[in-house]
């Protein structure tokens, strides 16, 4: 009974994470479309939400990696998964607050790894899966997106550079509807699957599913719905950072960045690599900027984003470990996760209330 209650809390927390993932990553998917005026914000976000939902249904390779290849499912308990999710959500909200497009995926994996190490020691981590399927692709993918976008924009300017700008801009704006749609679909396939993987891991840990099981249909549907709703809710702070503060983009650059991002994410999803879509699209945006003119990229902003990227895994791991410690301080039952959930929600309410009060004070 107690473990079932923890499982319910884990599923609820995982779906809350999925919502924040969509909310946080809306910018990655729509920022370039909006900033080049290829589509109005609400239209772009609506299409992105729908395609995120559909994308969640077309593959389960990444979910299988998260559920079976990162931590040892034999030593994982639902409370460990819960604490990892708290670490991921907390880090997502901190970086959202600061307007930094950090990686929800690495926050999730960092949180789960941190809580697993706190609970069962370093042996709980499957180094081969963590390094081979998460860390190495995490470094390689944004670099590939950078190079593909840079190469692409060079080719674009070579082909259409001497044409009148009006038709070219209009053409690439239409193209961005397709490339932005592909990016949203790719985001749904890769990111929604991480939540599916975590819920599946919790179901395996609870004994509800057997080892190496695939996610059940209700998990896929609920994860798809949560990320789509989160995407629709949007994160305007990060849209501004990605869409205008890294580089000022034209529609050809937006198309190149989105095309590069979609290609890298879709190819990686095929092989089950749980990528950071944030890293990839920002790599594409920087590549599209640098391909036109290296000084067009605001490297200071890009540097802040990179610092957030580097901090994400260890910071989410530390919060996940602390959340596990707090969850088990009152025993191994459901009381700990319930108290941590209430504490976490209270902190959020206080923080958001103070922020609203601060925002409503007229400037002197």
């Amino acid at each position, binding site marked *: 009974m107690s473990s079932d209650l923890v499982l319910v809390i884990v599923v609820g927390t995982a779906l809350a994470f999925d919502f924040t993932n969509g909310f946080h990553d809306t910018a990655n998917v729509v920022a370039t479309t909006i900033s080049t005026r290829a589509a109005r914000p609400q239209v772009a976000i609506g299409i992105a939400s729908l395609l995120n939902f559909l994308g969640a249904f*077309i*593959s389960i*390779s990444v979910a299988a990696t998260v559920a079976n290849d990162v931590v040892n499912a034999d030593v994982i308990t639902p409370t460990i998964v819960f604490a990892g999710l708290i670490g991921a959500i907390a880090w997502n909200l901190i970086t959202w607050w600061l307007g930094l497009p950090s990686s929800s995926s690495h926050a999730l994996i960092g949180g789960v790894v941190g809580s697993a190490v706190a609970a069962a020691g370093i042996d709980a981590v499957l*180094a*081969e899966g963590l*390094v*081979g*399927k998460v860390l*190495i*692709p995490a470094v*390689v993918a944004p670099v*590939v*997106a950078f*190079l*593909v*976008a840079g*190469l*692409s*924009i060079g*080719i*674009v300017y070579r*082909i*259409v550079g001497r*044409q*009148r700008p009006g*038709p*070219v801009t209009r*053409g*690439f704006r239409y*193209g961005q509807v*397709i490339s932005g749609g*592909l990016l949203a*679909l790719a985001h749904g*396939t890769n990111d929604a699957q991480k939540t599916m993987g975590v819920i599946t891991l919790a179901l395996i840990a609870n004994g509800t599913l057997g080892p190496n099981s695939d996610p059940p249909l209700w998990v896929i549907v609920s994860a798809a719905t949560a990320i789509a709703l989160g995407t629709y809710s949007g994160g305007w702070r990060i849209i501004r950072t990605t869409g205008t503060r890294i580089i000022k983009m034209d529609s*050809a650059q937006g*198309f*190149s960045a989105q*095309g*590069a991002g*979609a*290609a*890298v994410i*879709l*190819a*990686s*999803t*095929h*092989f089950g*690599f749980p990528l950071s879509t944030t890293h990839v699209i920002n790599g594409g945006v920087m590549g599209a900027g640098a391909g036109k003119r290296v000084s067009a990229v605001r490297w200071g902003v890009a540097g802040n984003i990179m610092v957030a990227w580097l901090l994400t895994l260890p910071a989410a791991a530390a919060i996940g470990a602390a959340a596990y410690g707090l969850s088990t301080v009152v025993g191994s039952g459901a009381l700990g996760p319930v108290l941590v959930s209430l504490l976490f929600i209270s902190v959020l309410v206080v923080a958001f209330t103070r922020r609203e009060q601060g925002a409503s004070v007229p400037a002197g």
Partner: protein
Amino acid sequence: MAIIVQTKELAQTIVASVVAGVGVTLVFSIAIWGAARFVDLNRSQRPLAAGAAAALGAAALAVTLATVVVGIVVMTSK
């Protein structure tokens, strides 16, 4: 080390990303070029050249869309 890094899968991911990302942009740029040239050549009253540019643009657009569809199908085939 090779097993940990999963060299083959990673290499295939990189190759597929480069081919798909650069390829689609290249072909779509040709479609845009064809459309832009069609408008200009039509205005200059050169219907044959305009028709050729339009045909090239339309073919490139078709290849772009086909590549996108094939890409999605390949990804979902695993």
